[in-house]
Protein backbone atom coordinates (compact mmCIF):
# COMPACT_ATOMS: atom_id res chain seq x y z
CA UNK A 1 0.00 0.00 0.00
CA UNK A 2 2.79 2.43 0.92
CA UNK A 3 5.41 3.04 -1.70
CA UNK A 4 8.33 5.41 -1.55
CA UNK A 5 8.22 7.85 -4.47
CA UNK A 6 11.97 7.86 -4.93
CA UNK A 7 14.08 4.75 -4.38
CA UNK A 8 17.32 6.02 -5.86
CA UNK A 9 18.40 7.73 -2.65
CA UNK A 10 17.81 5.16 0.04
CA UNK A 11 17.16 1.97 -1.88
CA UNK A 12 13.98 -0.09 -2.00
CA UNK A 13 11.87 -0.20 1.13
CA UNK A 14 11.83 -3.39 3.18
CA UNK A 15 8.76 -3.00 5.34
CA UNK A 16 6.55 -0.42 7.05
CA UNK A 17 5.12 -0.13 10.57
CA UNK A 18 1.87 1.81 10.82
CA UNK A 19 1.02 3.95 13.85
CA UNK A 20 -2.01 5.87 12.63
CA UNK A 21 -0.77 8.82 10.61
CA UNK A 22 2.82 8.05 11.50
CA UNK A 23 4.00 5.35 9.13
CA UNK A 24 7.52 4.23 10.04
CA UNK A 25 9.55 2.49 7.42
CA UNK A 26 12.74 0.62 6.79
CA UNK A 27 14.67 0.97 3.59
CA UNK A 28 18.02 -0.60 2.85
CA UNK A 29 19.69 2.61 4.04
CA UNK A 30 17.73 3.20 7.24
CA UNK A 31 17.73 -0.51 8.09
CA UNK A 32 21.53 -0.43 7.99
CA UNK A 33 21.57 2.59 10.30
CA UNK A 34 18.99 0.94 12.57
CA UNK A 35 21.05 -2.24 12.82
CA UNK A 36 24.13 -0.24 13.75
CA UNK A 37 22.24 1.61 16.48
CA UNK A 38 20.75 -1.67 17.73
CA UNK A 39 24.18 -3.32 17.88
CA UNK A 40 25.57 -0.44 19.88
CA UNK A 41 22.60 -0.45 22.25
CA UNK A 42 23.14 -4.16 22.92
CA UNK A 43 26.82 -3.42 23.47
CA UNK A 44 25.87 -0.83 26.10
CA UNK A 45 23.63 -3.37 27.83
CA UNK A 46 26.21 -6.14 28.10
CA UNK A 47 29.49 -4.28 28.50
CA UNK A 48 31.19 -3.14 31.69
CA UNK A 49 32.79 0.31 31.97
CA UNK A 50 36.38 0.61 30.80
CA UNK A 51 39.12 1.52 33.22
CA UNK A 52 41.42 4.38 32.48
CA UNK A 53 45.10 4.52 33.21
CA UNK A 54 46.91 7.84 33.58
CA UNK A 55 50.63 7.65 32.87
CA UNK A 56 52.91 10.25 34.38
CA UNK A 57 55.37 11.33 31.70
CA UNK A 58 59.02 11.26 32.51
CA UNK A 59 58.74 8.41 34.97
CA UNK A 60 57.40 4.94 35.50
CA UNK A 61 54.42 6.05 37.58
CA UNK A 62 50.87 5.41 36.49
CA UNK A 63 47.49 5.78 38.17
CA UNK A 64 44.57 3.45 37.56
CA UNK A 65 41.23 5.09 38.01
CA UNK A 66 38.76 3.05 40.02
CA UNK A 67 35.52 2.73 38.12
CA UNK A 68 32.79 0.42 39.37
CA UNK A 69 29.56 -0.46 37.56
CA UNK A 70 27.57 1.07 40.44
CA UNK A 71 29.00 4.52 39.67
CA UNK A 72 28.03 4.13 36.06
CA UNK A 73 24.43 3.14 36.67
CA UNK A 74 22.93 6.42 35.60
CA UNK A 75 25.17 6.78 32.55
CA UNK A 76 24.18 3.32 31.46
CA UNK A 77 20.49 4.13 31.85
CA UNK A 78 20.88 7.33 29.86
CA UNK A 79 22.95 5.59 27.19
CA UNK A 80 20.18 3.02 26.82
CA UNK A 81 17.55 5.75 26.53
CA UNK A 82 19.77 7.46 23.97
CA UNK A 83 20.02 4.22 22.01
CA UNK A 84 16.26 3.78 22.01
CA UNK A 85 15.73 7.39 20.88
CA UNK A 86 18.25 6.82 18.08
CA UNK A 87 16.40 3.68 17.02
CA UNK A 88 13.18 5.70 16.91
CA UNK A 89 14.75 8.47 14.86
CA UNK A 90 16.24 5.98 12.39
CA UNK A 91 12.91 4.43 11.42
CA UNK A 92 10.64 7.46 11.78
CA UNK A 93 8.46 8.27 8.80
CA UNK A 94 7.11 11.58 10.03
CA UNK A 95 8.92 14.90 10.29
CA UNK A 96 7.54 15.93 13.68
CA UNK A 97 8.16 12.48 15.09
CA UNK A 98 11.75 12.67 13.85
CA UNK A 99 12.29 16.04 15.52
CA UNK A 100 10.88 14.67 18.78
CA UNK A 101 13.28 11.74 18.76
CA UNK A 102 16.14 14.08 17.84
CA UNK A 103 15.47 16.32 20.83
CA UNK A 104 15.26 13.21 23.00
CA UNK A 105 18.72 12.21 21.77
CA UNK A 106 19.93 15.70 22.71
CA UNK A 107 18.56 15.58 26.24
CA UNK A 108 19.84 12.04 26.91
CA UNK A 109 23.28 13.15 25.70
CA UNK A 110 23.20 15.86 28.36
CA UNK A 111 22.11 13.21 30.86
CA UNK A 112 25.06 10.96 30.03
CA UNK A 113 27.61 13.67 30.75
CA UNK A 114 25.73 15.39 33.58
CA UNK A 115 26.44 12.48 35.92
CA UNK A 116 30.22 12.98 35.94
CA UNK A 117 31.94 14.82 38.72
CA UNK A 118 34.97 16.15 36.83
CA UNK A 119 34.87 19.87 36.38
CA UNK A 120 36.06 20.03 32.77
CA UNK A 121 33.44 17.46 31.73
CA UNK A 122 30.66 19.33 33.47
CA UNK A 123 31.82 22.58 31.87
CA UNK A 124 31.65 20.99 28.42
CA UNK A 125 28.27 19.50 29.28
CA UNK A 126 27.00 22.93 30.30
CA UNK A 127 28.08 24.52 27.01
CA UNK A 128 26.64 21.61 25.10
CA UNK A 129 23.37 21.87 27.03
CA UNK A 130 22.99 25.53 26.08
CA UNK A 131 23.51 24.69 22.40
CA UNK A 132 21.05 21.79 22.59
CA UNK A 133 18.45 24.04 24.16
CA UNK A 134 18.90 26.74 21.48
CA UNK A 135 18.71 24.05 18.82
CA UNK A 136 15.15 23.10 19.69
CA UNK A 137 14.01 26.40 18.16
CA UNK A 138 15.17 25.70 14.57
CA UNK A 139 14.35 22.01 14.99
CA UNK A 140 10.68 22.42 15.82
CA UNK A 141 10.53 25.62 13.76
CA UNK A 142 11.35 23.58 10.67
CA UNK A 143 8.53 21.11 11.46
CA UNK A 144 6.16 24.05 11.93
CA UNK A 145 7.19 25.67 8.63
CA UNK A 146 6.79 22.34 6.82
CA UNK A 147 3.30 21.84 8.27
CA UNK A 148 2.24 25.40 7.46
CA UNK A 149 3.52 25.48 3.89
CA UNK A 150 2.66 21.95 2.79
CA UNK A 151 -0.25 21.03 5.07
CA UNK A 152 1.17 17.66 6.02
CA UNK A 153 3.98 16.11 8.04
CA UNK A 154 4.14 12.60 6.64
CA UNK A 155 7.37 11.87 4.80
CA UNK A 156 5.46 9.67 2.37
CA UNK A 157 3.70 12.78 1.06
CA UNK A 158 6.66 15.15 1.42
CA UNK A 159 9.02 12.91 -0.54
CA UNK A 160 6.70 13.06 -3.56
CA UNK A 161 7.39 15.44 -6.40
CA UNK A 162 4.06 17.29 -6.06
CA UNK A 163 4.94 18.90 -2.73
CA UNK A 164 7.76 21.43 -2.57
CA UNK A 165 9.30 21.88 0.87
CA UNK A 166 10.81 25.38 1.29
CA UNK A 167 14.59 25.55 1.46
CA UNK A 168 14.57 27.45 4.76
CA UNK A 169 12.72 24.59 6.45
CA UNK A 170 15.42 22.16 5.30
CA UNK A 171 18.20 24.46 6.53
CA UNK A 172 16.42 24.81 9.89
CA UNK A 173 16.09 21.04 10.17
CA UNK A 174 19.80 20.49 9.52
CA UNK A 175 20.72 23.31 11.90
CA UNK A 176 18.53 21.82 14.63
CA UNK A 177 20.05 18.36 14.24
CA UNK A 178 23.52 19.97 14.25
CA UNK A 179 22.77 21.56 17.61
CA UNK A 180 21.14 18.52 19.17
CA UNK A 181 23.64 15.98 17.92
CA UNK A 182 26.67 18.27 18.06
CA UNK A 183 27.95 16.73 14.87
CA UNK A 184 30.24 19.56 13.71
CA UNK A 185 31.18 20.80 17.17
CA UNK A 186 33.69 18.26 18.29
CA UNK A 187 35.25 20.65 20.77
CA UNK A 188 32.77 19.87 23.49
CA UNK A 189 32.81 16.20 22.65
CA UNK A 190 36.57 15.97 22.95
CA UNK A 191 36.28 17.38 26.46
CA UNK A 192 33.42 15.05 27.26
CA UNK A 193 35.10 11.87 26.10
CA UNK A 194 38.14 12.44 28.30
CA UNK A 195 35.92 11.15 31.11
CA UNK A 196 36.02 7.45 32.02
CA UNK A 197 33.27 5.03 31.08
CA UNK A 198 33.86 4.39 27.40
CA UNK A 199 30.89 2.48 26.02
CA UNK A 200 28.38 4.86 27.56
CA UNK A 201 30.09 8.06 26.53
CA UNK A 202 30.59 6.78 22.99
CA UNK A 203 26.82 6.56 22.62
CA UNK A 204 26.92 10.35 22.20
CA UNK A 205 29.08 9.99 19.09
CA UNK A 206 27.10 7.09 17.65
CA UNK A 207 23.74 8.79 18.09
CA UNK A 208 24.83 12.09 16.57
CA UNK A 209 26.54 10.35 13.64
CA UNK A 210 23.46 8.28 12.87
CA UNK A 211 21.15 11.29 13.28
CA UNK A 212 23.22 13.25 10.83
CA UNK A 213 23.18 10.45 8.26
CA UNK A 214 19.42 10.19 8.63
CA UNK A 215 18.75 13.93 8.34
CA UNK A 216 20.83 14.07 5.17
CA UNK A 217 18.62 11.37 3.68
CA UNK A 218 15.44 13.23 4.72
CA UNK A 219 16.61 16.60 3.41
CA UNK A 220 17.73 15.20 0.06
CA UNK A 221 14.50 13.26 -0.38
CA UNK A 222 12.19 16.16 0.45
Amino acid at each position, binding site marked *: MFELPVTTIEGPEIFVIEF*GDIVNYFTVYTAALFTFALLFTILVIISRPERQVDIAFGGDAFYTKDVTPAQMKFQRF*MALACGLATLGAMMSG*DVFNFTLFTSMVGITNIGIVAAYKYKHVLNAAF*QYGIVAM*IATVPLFGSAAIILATTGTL*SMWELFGSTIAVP*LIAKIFLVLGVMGEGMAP*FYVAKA*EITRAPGAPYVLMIHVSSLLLFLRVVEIVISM
Partner: protein
Amino acid sequence: MKRREGRGTRISRISRTISELENLAGLYAVLFIAVTLIGAFTLPSLLYQEDQLYPKTIDTNSSLNPYERGGTPFNTTEVRAQYPENSPYLGYVTAYLTPVTRFIADHTPYLGTTIVAHPGGIIDEILYNTRGLDTVAETSILFVAFAIAAHLFRRED
Protein backbone atom coordinates in the same frame (compact mmCIF):
# COMPACT_ATOMS: atom_id res chain seq x y z
CA MET B 1 38.03 32.52 29.89
CA LYS B 2 41.58 31.75 28.93
CA ARG B 3 43.26 34.39 26.85
CA ARG B 4 46.35 33.64 24.84
CA GLU B 5 48.66 35.90 22.88
CA GLY B 6 47.22 36.76 19.49
CA ARG B 7 50.12 35.40 17.50
CA GLY B 8 50.13 33.38 14.32
CA THR B 9 48.40 33.55 11.01
CA ARG B 10 44.78 34.46 10.57
CA ILE B 11 43.76 30.85 10.08
CA SER B 12 45.45 29.71 13.26
CA ARG B 13 43.70 32.48 15.17
CA ILE B 14 40.34 31.38 13.74
CA SER B 15 41.03 27.78 14.64
CA ARG B 16 42.05 28.82 18.15
CA THR B 17 38.80 30.74 18.57
CA ILE B 18 36.75 27.77 17.40
CA SER B 19 38.56 25.36 19.69
CA GLU B 20 37.79 27.43 22.80
CA LEU B 21 35.01 25.64 24.60
CA GLU B 22 33.55 28.87 25.96
CA ASN B 23 32.92 30.17 22.45
CA LEU B 24 30.77 27.18 21.52
CA ALA B 25 27.35 28.59 22.37
CA GLY B 26 28.23 31.91 20.77
CA LEU B 27 29.41 30.17 17.61
CA TYR B 28 26.18 28.25 17.30
CA ALA B 29 24.19 31.40 18.03
CA VAL B 30 25.97 33.26 15.20
CA LEU B 31 25.14 30.42 12.83
CA PHE B 32 21.54 30.44 14.01
CA ILE B 33 21.22 34.21 13.61
CA ALA B 34 22.60 34.02 10.06
CA VAL B 35 20.09 31.33 9.10
CA THR B 36 17.25 33.20 10.81
CA LEU B 37 18.13 36.32 8.80
CA ILE B 38 17.94 34.27 5.58
CA GLY B 39 14.62 32.95 6.84
CA ALA B 40 13.32 36.43 7.57
CA PHE B 41 14.17 37.58 4.05
CA THR B 42 12.61 34.55 2.34
CA LEU B 43 9.54 34.66 4.58
CA PRO B 44 7.37 36.54 2.03
CA SER B 45 7.94 33.72 -0.48
CA LEU B 46 6.40 31.13 1.85
CA LEU B 47 2.71 30.60 1.24
CA TYR B 48 0.33 29.12 3.79
CA GLN B 49 -1.22 25.92 2.51
CA GLU B 50 -4.99 26.22 2.87
CA ASP B 51 -5.57 22.48 2.63
CA GLN B 52 -4.26 21.57 6.09
CA LEU B 53 -4.21 18.02 7.35
CA TYR B 54 -4.91 19.16 10.91
CA PRO B 55 -7.27 22.12 10.48
CA LYS B 56 -7.88 24.51 13.33
CA THR B 57 -11.09 26.45 13.74
CA ILE B 58 -11.72 28.80 16.63
CA ASP B 59 -15.25 29.20 17.89
CA THR B 60 -15.09 31.89 20.57
CA ASN B 61 -18.69 31.30 21.68
CA SER B 62 -18.08 27.68 22.62
CA SER B 63 -17.34 26.86 26.25
CA LEU B 64 -14.67 24.44 25.02
CA ASN B 65 -12.85 27.24 23.20
CA PRO B 66 -10.16 26.88 21.79
CA TYR B 67 -10.42 23.09 21.65
CA GLU B 68 -13.93 22.68 20.25
CA ARG B 69 -13.90 19.87 17.69
CA GLY B 70 -17.64 19.48 17.27
CA GLY B 71 -19.62 16.27 16.89
CA THR B 72 -21.81 14.21 19.19
CA PRO B 73 -20.49 11.61 21.69
CA PHE B 74 -20.14 8.00 20.53
CA ASN B 75 -21.01 8.88 17.00
CA THR B 76 -18.77 9.37 14.03
CA THR B 77 -17.35 12.86 13.99
CA GLU B 78 -15.52 14.10 10.96
CA VAL B 79 -11.80 14.05 11.90
CA ARG B 80 -9.24 14.31 9.14
CA ALA B 81 -6.40 11.81 9.02
CA GLN B 82 -3.58 11.27 6.57
CA TYR B 83 -4.24 7.53 6.40
CA PRO B 84 -7.81 6.86 7.63
CA GLU B 85 -7.36 3.14 6.97
CA ASN B 86 -4.83 3.05 9.83
CA SER B 87 -7.30 4.55 12.33
CA PRO B 88 -10.58 2.64 11.93
CA TYR B 89 -12.12 4.03 15.15
CA LEU B 90 -11.29 7.64 14.39
CA GLY B 91 -13.99 10.14 15.38
CA TYR B 92 -15.91 8.08 17.92
CA VAL B 93 -14.98 9.73 21.20
CA THR B 94 -14.00 13.27 20.24
CA ALA B 95 -17.05 14.93 21.83
CA TYR B 96 -17.27 12.73 24.92
CA LEU B 97 -17.09 14.48 28.31
CA THR B 98 -17.57 12.89 31.74
CA PRO B 99 -20.63 14.19 33.68
CA VAL B 100 -18.53 16.43 35.93
CA THR B 101 -16.70 17.86 32.94
CA ARG B 102 -20.00 18.36 31.11
CA PHE B 103 -21.22 20.32 34.14
CA ILE B 104 -18.12 22.53 34.09
CA ALA B 105 -18.42 23.05 30.34
CA ASP B 106 -22.09 23.99 30.60
CA HIS B 107 -21.62 26.52 33.39
CA THR B 108 -18.32 28.29 32.70
CA PRO B 109 -17.19 29.60 29.34
CA TYR B 110 -13.52 30.11 30.25
CA LEU B 111 -12.22 26.68 31.25
CA GLY B 112 -11.61 25.16 27.83
CA THR B 113 -7.90 24.56 28.44
CA THR B 114 -8.57 23.07 31.87
CA ILE B 115 -11.17 20.73 30.40
CA VAL B 116 -8.69 19.48 27.82
CA ALA B 117 -5.90 19.07 30.36
CA HIS B 118 -7.72 17.07 33.05
CA PRO B 119 -8.71 13.39 32.83
CA GLY B 120 -12.17 12.90 31.45
CA GLY B 121 -11.95 15.99 29.28
CA ILE B 122 -11.96 16.20 25.53
CA ILE B 123 -10.07 13.32 24.02
CA ASP B 124 -8.04 14.84 21.24
CA GLU B 125 -8.21 12.14 18.63
CA ILE B 126 -5.64 13.83 16.45
CA LEU B 127 -3.13 13.44 19.27
CA TYR B 128 -4.10 10.11 20.73
CA ASN B 129 -5.42 8.23 17.75
CA THR B 130 -3.71 9.31 14.57
CA ARG B 131 -0.51 10.67 16.12
CA GLY B 132 -0.20 8.38 19.10
CA LEU B 133 3.55 7.76 18.71
CA ASP B 134 4.18 11.50 19.12
CA THR B 135 2.43 11.44 22.48
CA VAL B 136 4.60 8.52 23.59
CA ALA B 137 7.79 10.26 22.47
CA GLU B 138 6.85 13.53 24.17
CA THR B 139 6.19 11.89 27.52
CA SER B 140 9.45 9.94 27.19
CA ILE B 141 11.34 13.22 26.76
CA LEU B 142 9.66 14.58 29.90
CA PHE B 143 10.52 11.40 31.77
CA VAL B 144 14.16 11.62 30.77
CA ALA B 145 14.29 15.27 31.83
CA PHE B 146 12.80 14.42 35.23
CA ALA B 147 15.21 11.51 35.64
CA ILE B 148 18.21 13.79 35.00
CA ALA B 149 16.88 16.44 37.38
CA ALA B 150 16.24 13.84 40.09
CA HIS B 151 19.71 12.36 39.65
CA LEU B 152 21.39 15.76 39.86
CA PHE B 153 19.36 16.64 42.93
CA ARG B 154 19.99 13.42 44.81
CA ARG B 155 23.62 12.68 44.04
CA GLU B 156 26.24 12.98 46.75
CA ASP B 157 29.13 15.25 46.01
